[in-house]
């Protein structure tokens, strides 16, 4: 089922509400990056992935698989999984609470459908994706492996081990998206450990690089379609996705301040007023 743009917009608004409500509910979590990646994960889970949420299998054979490497944006991930049917929406209310399957950072340990690897300690997801991609090739499974990383996360050396591996071995069934929001916990990435021109770095490793405006629903849809077409051509694919951390909630945008803090009651009301309920709160 392909959702229309107006339907997708409803999911995007609802997911933004979910994110701020989940983080507010336990007064912890990471709203900034989650809000910035809302369009991407909504389009990916509603319209792009060829998957079977009702019958989740760890192996994901003959399905597209998504790996979240920057596990701290778990609120948007959990909302996207719930809205595509991996588990009941009501479970979002248990986020980060004792005995929940929705741990602070995603894990397979509690058996949450949709999650295939623990993430949180950064830099490992692209390597995991390479492993799944190699297994798909061995199995002659032509579906794709998607992975999302943060731009700050690219400071982890392991990422570049995997970048080198993927191109050397022509892993052309991976679509790796980098959330280029320019922010990390301690400040702007350009000040902490800046990358001048990410495109040239990935291209130097022989990746196919495309850019995307991550907070434009239309551009996310177009670019993800384009990326899938580029697969199977001997090169791994990188999408440099420009986003605004905190997008959709005006006072959370424009700085790194909302990377990992929760809104208070008043701030929650203001955030929800900017994102009215569409398909219903959990």
């Amino acid at each position, binding site marked *: 089922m392909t959702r229309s743009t107006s339907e997708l917009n409803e999911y995007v608004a609802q997911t933004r509400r979910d994110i701020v409500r989940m983080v507010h509910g336990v007064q912890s979590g990471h709203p900034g990056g989650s809000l910035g990646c809302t369009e991407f994960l909504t389009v990916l889970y509603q319209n792009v992935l060829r998957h079977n949420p009702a019958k989740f299998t*760890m*192996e*994901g*054979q003959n399905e597209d698989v998504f*790996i979240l490497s920057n596990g701290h944006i778990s609120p948007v991930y959990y909302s996207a999984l719930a809205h595509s049917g991996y588990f009941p929406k009501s479970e979002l209310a248990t986020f980060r609470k004792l005995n929940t399957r929705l741990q602070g950072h995603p*894990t*397979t*340990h509690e058996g949450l459908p949709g999650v*295939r*690897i*623990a*993430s*949180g*300690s950064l*830099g*490992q*997801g692209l*390597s*995991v*994706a*390479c*492993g*799944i*991609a*190699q*297994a*798909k090739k*061995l*199995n002659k499974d032509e579906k794709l492996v998607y992975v999302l990383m943060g731009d700050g996360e690219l400071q982890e*050396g*392991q990422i570049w*081990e*995997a970048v*080198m*591996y993927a191109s*050397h*071995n022509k892993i052309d069934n991976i679509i790796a998206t980098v959330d280029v929001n320019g922010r990390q916990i301690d400040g702007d990435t350009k000040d902490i450990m800046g990358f001048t021109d990410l495109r040239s770095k990935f291209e130097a490793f022989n990746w196919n690089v495309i850019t995307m405006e991550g907070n434009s629903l239309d551009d996310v849809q177009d670019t993800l379609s384009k990326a899938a077409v580029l697969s199977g051509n001997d090169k791994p694919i990188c999408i440099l996705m420009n986003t605004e951390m905190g997008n959709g909630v005006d006072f959370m945008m424009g700085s790194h301040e909302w990377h990992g803090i929760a809104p208070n009651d008043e701030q929650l009301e203001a955030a929800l007023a900017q994102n009215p309920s569409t398909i219903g709160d959990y």
Partner: protein
Amino acid sequence: MEKKDTRSGFGDGLYELGLKNENVVGLCADLTGSLKMNKFENEFPKRFFQMGIAEANMISMAAGLATAGKIPFTGTFANFSTGRVYDQIRQSIAYSDKNVKICASHAGLTLGEDGATHQILEDIGLMKMLPGMTVINPCDYNQTKAATLAIADHQGPVYLRFGRPKWPVFTEENTFEIGKALHLRQGSDVTIFATGHLVWNSLEAAKALAEEGISAEVINIHTIKPLDNKAILDAAAKTQCVVTAEEHQMNGGLGDSICQLLSRYNPLPVEMVAVDDSFGESGTPEELLEKYGLGIKDVIAAAKRAISRK
């Protein structure tokens, strides 16, 4: 007595697995010859992944292969298989419960001349602390080959530790079972629990003790986790004193696990033959075992001390 390196037991076992289980895949970080993985690589090139000198990527990629239903065997030196990639193992393999077999060669002092940078003596401790991790340290070629075959049938993460030097081959084939202690010599005065290369030294020590009229039992604890609690407690109850012997730090090794067990259920005198909070250095395996207190005479002395404390 025939001598063979335990790493060849791994290489031969992996090759056999390749023949009989198409889900088995091999990954190696630029040490294919050292790990004896060439036969697997040559026979099953599509199922062999050359990772280059990039161990972190290798470990997490193995987690991905396991996610998709493969049974990955990673190969590099024990140092680079554990400490270097601890966080990758912890998050992507142990916590994620992935069916990855971390196969580690050149463990301990018997690596020899390369020196302390490569002679890891902390790996058993690092691995046994991880929830759900099985830890195996076979004692000779036959046992290493058997263990390699056995772990493919075990669902869950495994750390398999072996070594570089040619070492006596003394166990029978087909006597290995994960988690089941192996009685190698009966005795009534003292029980020596040994793992890895030190099992041979313990058997030699028991022979020498017999000549002095001391009856030493030798039990091979190849699986450090899960520990064969019953076999250990039964043996200790019989002889009333214990020696542990291993090529590892005293902290975190087999002796440490046995002391925990005995202190809870049957506190008895224990003497530990292990490296005492020290790094190694360059030298031949024999020289190093002697200098760091892991020689046959050290096991003999430990047995006498244990008996004297009864």
